[in-house]
């Protein structure tokens, strides 16, 4: 087994703890015995070539794979000490504390305002003033407010790709989740939008635990506190960003970092 995580002694502040996680698409054994943990208020990047299982792994953390027909999962994902695959867990409830941002910007076919307010509304918040205030705040956090403040009632899909992605971020943080999952959030964006979003991620660790899937080493280097490397569904290495990028322990990680994949 590869040597994951730093050492057992600094396990305080662990918020997500993944234990012996295996995931199967039908008979295809994709994620192979994954063990790692994420700490509160840190940014972790999960690197690896396309197809190595990053998206699937992220989706095991908020049980979005539940809908994939024929999939199977073994092992545990503990969030704040509770196994989210426990029968007593209500998935709808679980996801309210975990925001997710997808590779393709996917705003709802609604106005800009309603997109950000969506989470609050489905969580049963009725207080108009609170909603307005929260929407504004989140649009400011995600560096979009100045560009959209005069057209909050315009369809979200009329925004540019980079703006749509920032809107999706605003939408994800509106309900104040403790964990933010981001699946290659800059994959389809231009360099300027990408840079804006990377800065956002950096500023977010004050409030959230951010877990980002990425295949871009430079970008990951800019934001990571911790980094992991996946290859063919295996977690090859996971460590603090400093040592991960400068002194990787595994040859395969080194090859990836020096772009040999």
């Amino acid at each position: 087994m590869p040597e994951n995580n730093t050492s057992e002694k600094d396990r305080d502040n662990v918020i997500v703890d993944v234990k012996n996680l295996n995931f199967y698409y039908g008979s295809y054994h994709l994620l192979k015995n994954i063990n790692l943990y994420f700490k509160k208020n840190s940014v972790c990047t999960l690197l690896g070539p396309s197809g190595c299982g990053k998206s699937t792994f992220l989706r095991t953390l908020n049980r979005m794979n539940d809908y994939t027909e024929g999939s199977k999962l073994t092992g545990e994902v503990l969030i704040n000490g509770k196994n989210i695959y426990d029968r007593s867990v209500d998935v709808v409830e679980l996801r309210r504390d975990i925001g997710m941002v997808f590779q393709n910007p996917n705003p709802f076919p609604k106005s800009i305002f309603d997109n950000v307010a969506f989470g609050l509304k489905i969580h049963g918040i009725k207080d108009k003033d609170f909603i307005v205030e929260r929407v504004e705040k989140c649009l400011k956090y995600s560096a979009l407010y100045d560009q959209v403040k005069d057209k909050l009632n315009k369809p979200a899909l009329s925004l540019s790709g980079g703006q749509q992605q920032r809107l999706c971020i605003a939408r994800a943080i509106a309900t104040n989740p403790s964990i933010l999952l981001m699946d290659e959030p800059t994959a389809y964006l231009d360099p300027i939008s990408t840079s804006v979003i990377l800065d956002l991620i950096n500023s977010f660790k004050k409030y959230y635990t951010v877990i980002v899937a990425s295949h871009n080493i430079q970008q990951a280097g800019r934001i990571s506190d911790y980094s992991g490397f996946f290859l063919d569904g295996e977690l090859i290495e996971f460590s603090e960003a400093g040592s991960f990028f400068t002194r990787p322990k595994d040859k395969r990680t080194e090859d990836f970092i020096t772009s040999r994949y």
Partner: protein
Amino acid sequence: MFTLKYKDDLFRFILSVFVLSVISIFLIAVAIILYYSYPAIMKYGISFLWVKEWNPPKEIFGALTFIAGTLAVTFIALIFAIPLSFGIGIFLQEYCPHFLRGIFTVIIEILAGIPSVIFGVWGVLVVVPWLRTTVEPFFDKHFSYIPFLRVSENIGYGILAASIVVMFMILPIIASITKDSLASVPKIAKDGALAMGATQLDVIKDVSLPYALNGIYGGIVLGFGRAVGETIAVVLLIGNQAIIPKSLFSVGYTISSLLANTFTFAVINPIYASAEVELALILLLISLIVNIIGRNILDRVIGGKFNRSQFGGG
């Protein structure tokens, strides 16, 4: 030598011929209708639209009775059909267990293809007796003070009988298009809502339906088209009397059922024939107008700017 460019041009030319011939057949049909209705348009002018009398021996012709009957049957059928077919479409796509979905879908597709005369016969044998023995007595007893629900001749035939049967004819069309439109909603859009802790109902209401609205609207237009022009089933059920329906249970006449019943005699007298062709023209215009108004409403509802193509795969 056939160069690639040449093949491309040839293909484009053949396609253009197809398209142009369809358009010209349509235009020729419209021209013929205009040509034959011209004498009536000249003789009766615009008042043709609101004159109630239809008296072939005296050559007094007014369209209002038939316009009213046509609109009544069409809209009552749609009012029943739309919520029901939404329910069926949503159930099939979002809630139905997989193995049943296929079976139900096939049943609905078969229903959509059944010839309308069969629906008409079913209406006469089942719907009319049910209205006569159960529904009409009930409304007569409890709601006779509401003019719109008054039962004057408890015979079962009439606007409601025709509307119910037409509803069953358009139900499968709207339901299967609702289902297909929901099926084409990008998964990534639904995932976005689920990941926020939305329930399945939230997802349908806030993501799937807004996305599918365009397609569903197309289904409603198709259903409208079938309802407004439906002939045989309506002839068998509506009672075929040229009176303007004032109640759900009243008898009536639609443009298409009038033409089906009388056009063969009408051709003997040119002005009679011309008046009936003018009715056909009105039917065509109703379809066009409803289409245009519907499209405008829809554009306003969904903002008209939504662009599905922004959701790629990946």
